[in-house]
């Protein structure tokens, strides 16, 4: 049957209007084109002009339309009327809600501001929320970094002034070999995908180290299915091999790192292990021209890597010398580590060799002159085309900080940081730890805190301790238990508050943090703590204020719920003061703006904080006459100045001759300028400032002009981290600030100023031979609410993936159920075989499991009946070791939650009706979801 083809309209109208804003489906923050029809959101695609995603968009971003219209959206402020956890609320007005909050918080501020603990989860406005908390005067503020990736951030900043993740990225245009450690889907998700595609199209290679071969690890040319938690040992073994063969970049180490800096090498000296400095505090090197000590940054100095120097009767050796003594030790030989890492010795050598061969034999020059901080002009920029990336897989272990440090040491020894083809910082990074604030915790009733909460300690004197040695902060951040906890310890707040250790609080205020479910270790325990009462029947944590856009599991545990908007209904700034969206060759920031107005009685949480701040009379939020300083968050974004000329948004500020970037006065039309530019602002790094940023005079000048620093800040990469040595020294008994006795031995061990590896403490874990891990699927990574109607069709169930060997050993077949037990608890879950997996590791997709009644899902949704969390198996404390103490399940340096040290055993069981444990259904605060969807806006 032949018939005429139908006539098609090949040019249908696409939309009435395109509104450009910033995605918030994860932390990647891509630019969006939101296509509007009839005033409604019809279609979302990536913005081609945007520096982050360059037009592409992931599954989450494209599914944003389902998030924006989700039936789980809260509709009005809620006041709890039933018992906590029941989900029984009544809707109230905003005026009543704000009055309640003011009545609760005002008296605390008058007398004991620390009784408010304010912690935020997937908050992208931390420079604002922390400013609010600082003005309130409580020391108890942090975001979720403590259970996310503080090890990654902190190790990078202490070592080289930035880390992977939002601080930098591979030089995708030049790199030839890309090596990743512990990367599932991660921050910068679309840029990494774009980069891998680019690299592969040029024939470049990817080596992936991960116990699980999915995602990026699946497309890698080489997969190293390492034993979890041994990455640091593998890296140090490669360092051993490279050092031993002299395959390191001596010129780079001498010029740009503290490898040539002199260290007091006498154990009987009070300054043992301290860097030698001049009177101005500058690190000293031996100048090869004179053979004499000189400050590292003096004009023309040529630092000597191999020098020794006698001074004051003491021998001083270079950091290089100490590294050689440490890492040439046979304990790091490939043969010595192979079994523990699960990687054959020959393979460790082969990978080290490929790294060195690519870095050195394929080095290249870019014809771009530049001048370094010692005044030396270089005619070219030398490239080394090896780059690295790493994330949670190495940071969420109790040895994560030192493992991240080891990886940075590796890439610095190869001379691949801030050079063409290597790893590049994104402005405002690089920024060394010394250029960041120190932590502040000075509380004065009825006054702001004495400075920013979070920061980078330089020694024991910077800890947040009371005179009696107990912690100032409720999460015990910046205490001897975890001195470098630069992101705080959100995962300890509820358990500490419940235990009254170090003290009791009155009000817990949280934002986008699902602490009664997937964002806590020990979920069942946390639920009990949130609902526990004292002898008089009062809740032990007296008041809980929570803000969320959706009916998450945490909503049920709040006394007062402040409903937030969706990301398409709000103002936001993705600020250079915060976690910006810069690329290596440009500084960039962005806004969100309401492309549609909310159709519910909800308000952006940041705008609510502006009003609450005014009602509480917080100095930063009221004018001299007591009136509100900011009518809403947009008003703050435009008019707030952190320092004169420096505001939340760096673009379109007012200069003497019109619009300017970086430093500049307030521009009333700034948001309109951003909207007209597609919702973002980009300022390119000058050509001669593109690489060698920490040492490049042109970059340093540009950074000062932009307002990132107030004066040029050239510095050396800290292969040797002196702040760690200061803690180690204190543990050895030196100095006025002394740790508690029970922590001395541990501090001596872990606070090594050169990267080390130590196994996770597995005492009390006998009989639990299997490591259990989680990762988020790419289509849900960092996404707030995986109840999305389209995405849940991709990942609505999460079996426990079990390697072939363990499947056979336990007589399991796909679809069977297993009881998974840890020293802390047990779960019963469906299993599925996976061969491309480390043979002693099981894993599952995290946060697929939902509680019945949450997220507007039906009670029989697979997320609630078969889905599960590993969180029930993980305690915030380690099992008892028999020493009478309970040790935190976290990195002893930073306090990072050690999720990935979880050890379990499995056994086959008869299929239960549902995964275990199950909890009573929550009463949903939102109406029943629709039974069908056919989401067409146009006719």
């Amino acid at each position, binding site marked *: 049957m032949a018939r005429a083809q139908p006539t098609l309209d090949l040019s249908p109208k696409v939309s009435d209007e395109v509104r450009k804003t910033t995605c918030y489906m994860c932390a990647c923050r891509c630019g969006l084109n939101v296509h509007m029809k009839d005033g409604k959101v019809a279609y979302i695609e990536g913005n081609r002009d945007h520096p982050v995603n360059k037009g592409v968009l992931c599954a989450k971003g494209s599914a944003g339309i389902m998030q924006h219209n989700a039936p789980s959206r809260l509709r009005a402020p809620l006041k709890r009327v039933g018992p906590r956890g029941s989900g029984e609320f009544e809707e109230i007005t905003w005026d009543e809600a704000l009055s309640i909050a003011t009545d609760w918080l005002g008296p605390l501020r008058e007398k004991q501001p620390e009784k408010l603990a304010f912690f935020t989860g997937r908050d992208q406005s931390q420079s604002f929320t922390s400013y609010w908390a600082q003005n309130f005067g409580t020391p108890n503020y942090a975001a979720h970094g403590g259970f996310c990736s503080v090890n990654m951030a902190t190790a990078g900043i202490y070592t080289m002034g930035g880390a992977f993740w939002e601080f930098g990225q591979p030089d995708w245009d030049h790199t030839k070999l890309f090596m990743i450690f512990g990367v599932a889907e991660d921050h910068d998700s679309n840029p990494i995908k774009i980069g*891998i595609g680019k690299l592969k199209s040029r024939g470049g290679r990817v080596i992936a180290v991960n116990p699980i071969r999915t995602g990026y690890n699946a497309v890698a040319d080489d997969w190293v299915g390492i034993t979890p938690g041994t990455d640091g040992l593998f890296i140090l073994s490669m360092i051993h091999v490279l050092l031993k063969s002299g395959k390191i970049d001596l010129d780079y180490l001498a010029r740009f790192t503290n490898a040539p800096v002199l260290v007091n090498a006498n154990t009987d000296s009070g300054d043992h292990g301290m860097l030698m400095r001049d009177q101005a505090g500058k690190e000293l090197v031996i100048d090869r021209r004179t053979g004499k000590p000189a400050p590292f940054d003096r004009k023309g100095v040529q630092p000597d890597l191999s020098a020794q120097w006698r001074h004051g009767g003491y021998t001083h050796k270079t950091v290089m010398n100490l590294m050689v003594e440490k890492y040439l030790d046979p304990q790091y030989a490939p043969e010595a580590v192979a079994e523990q890492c699960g990687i054959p010795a020959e393979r460790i050598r082969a990978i080290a060799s490929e790294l*060195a061969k690519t870095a050195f034999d394929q080095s290249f020059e870019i014809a771009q002159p530049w001048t370094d901080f010692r005044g030396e002009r270089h005619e070219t920029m030398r490239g080394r085309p090896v780059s690295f990336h790493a994330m949670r897989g190495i940071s969420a272990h109790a040895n994560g900080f030192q493992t991240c440090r080891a990886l940075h040491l590796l890439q610095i020894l190869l001379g691949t940081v801030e050079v063409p083809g290597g790893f590049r910082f994104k402005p405002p990074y690089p920024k060394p730890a010394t250029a960041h604030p120190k932590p502040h915790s000075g509380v004065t009733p009825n006054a702001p805190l004495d400075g920013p909460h979070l920061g980078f300690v330089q020694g024991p004197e910077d800890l947040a301790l009371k005179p009696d040695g107990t912690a100032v902060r409720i999460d015990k951040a910046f205490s001897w238990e975890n001195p470098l906890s630069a992101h705080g310890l959100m995962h300890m707040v509820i358990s500490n508050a419940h235990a009254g250790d170090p003290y009791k609080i009155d009000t817990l205020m949280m934002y986008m943090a699902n602490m009664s479910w997937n964002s806590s270790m020990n979920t069942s325990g946390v639920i009990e703590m949130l609902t526990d009462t004292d002898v008089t029947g009062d809740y032990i944590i007296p008041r809980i204020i929570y803000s969320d856009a959706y009916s998450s599991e945490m909503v049920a545990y709040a006394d007062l719920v402040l409903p937030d908007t969706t990301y398409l209904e709000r103002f936001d700034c993705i600020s250079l003061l915060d976690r910006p969206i810069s690329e290596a060759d440009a500084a960039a920031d962005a806004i969100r703006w309401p492309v549609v107005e909310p159709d519910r009685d909800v308000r952006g949480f940041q705008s609510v904080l502006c009003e609450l701040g005014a009602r509480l009379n917080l100095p930063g939020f009221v004018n001299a006459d007591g009136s509100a300083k900011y009518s809403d968050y947009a008003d703050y974004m435009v008019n707030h100045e952190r320092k004169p000329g420096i505001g939340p948004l760096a673009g379109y500020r007012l200069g003497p001759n019109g619009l300017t970037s970086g430093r500049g006065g307030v521009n009333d039309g700034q948001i309109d300028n951003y909207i007209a530019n597609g919702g973002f602002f980009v300022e390119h790094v000058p050509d001669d400032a593109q690489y060698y940023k920490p040492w490049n005079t042109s970059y340093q000048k540009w950074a000062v002009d932009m307002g990132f620093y107030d004066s040029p800040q050239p510095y050396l990469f800290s292969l040797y981290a002196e702040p760690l040595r200061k803690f180690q020294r204190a543990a050895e008994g030196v100095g006025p600030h002394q740790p508690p006795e029970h922590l001395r031995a541990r501090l001596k061990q872990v606070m090594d100023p050169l990267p080390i590896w130590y196994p996770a403490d597995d005492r009390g874990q006998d009989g639990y031979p299997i490591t259990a891990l989680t990762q988020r699927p790419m289509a849900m990574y960092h996404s707030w609410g995986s109840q999305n109607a389209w995405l849940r069709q991709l990942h609505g169930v999460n079996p426990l993936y079990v390697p072939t060997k363990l499947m056979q050993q336990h007589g399991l077949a796909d679809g069977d159920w297993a009881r998974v037990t840890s020293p802390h608890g047990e779960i019963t879950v469906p299993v599925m075989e996976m061969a491309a997996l480390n043979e002693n590791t099981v894993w599952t997709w995290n946060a697929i499991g939902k509680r019945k009644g949450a997220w507007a899902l039906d009670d029989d949704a697979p997320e609630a009946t078969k889905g599960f969390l590993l969180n029930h198996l993980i305690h915030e404390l380690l099992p008892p070791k028999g020493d009478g103490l309970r040790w935190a399940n976290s990195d002893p340096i930073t306090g990072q939650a050690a999720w990935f040290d979880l050890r379990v055993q499995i056994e086959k069981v008869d299929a239960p009706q549902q995964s275990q444990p199950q909890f009573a259904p929550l009463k949903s605060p939102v109406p029943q979801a629709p039974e069908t969807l056919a989401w067409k806006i146009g006719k």
Partner: protein
Amino acid sequence: MTSLPKQTDRKLGLVIDLDTCVGCHACVISCKGWNTENYGAALSDTDPYGAEPSGTFLNRVHSYEVQPASGAAQLVHFPKSCLHCDNAPCVTVCPTGASYKRVEDGIVLVNESDCIGCGLCAWACPYGARELDALEGVMKKCTLCVDRIYNENLPEEDREPACVRTCPAGARHFGDFADPDSNVSRLNRDRGGIDLMPEQGTKPVNKYLPPRRKDQTAEIDVLAPFLEPVAEDAKGFMAWLDKTLEKF
């Protein structure tokens, strides 16, 4: 039954790079978004928040584990949509003429106003690339975004299928296989593109680029001599360092 054109002026289709596809499902959801709002009936979802959510998708990504004869198991992400076959059995089986292959460019489409929802085409397709929409009762399939690729309301650079435009890894390529110099023809030649299930005789237009060989460093260590030691201990190393630095 419906007849196929003897030949088409152009042969539009996709090259999908299985070496680069990271399995992120970006293409799946972008397709769902565009085609819900555009060509024909919306791609509906039944029980979207319930026990058995089931929606219409024109493109899905499957993941397969592969166990090579030696070495570690691998995971291959495999996006699948209509392959716009030259010899499309879904067209010839159609009783109403609703399924057809366009003479101009070879795109296989369903004219929804003529579709009776009998489902024969879905049975005939060996790839499982057609889905009957549960709410509308019409057959849905990849249109190669026929309402984008010629659309004068879109900037020229956006006149490509939504899945190609959105793919973060750049694993999807769109072009004309009738032109031997097109991007897709060249990629297909250079990378040894393959037909999916050629034994079915469907002559698919879309091609798949196979994954490169993996885990080569696991097998041989040709580079090891590169790592000849310069010293055995710290003292020896510092001596080597002294000597080496003299040459700087």
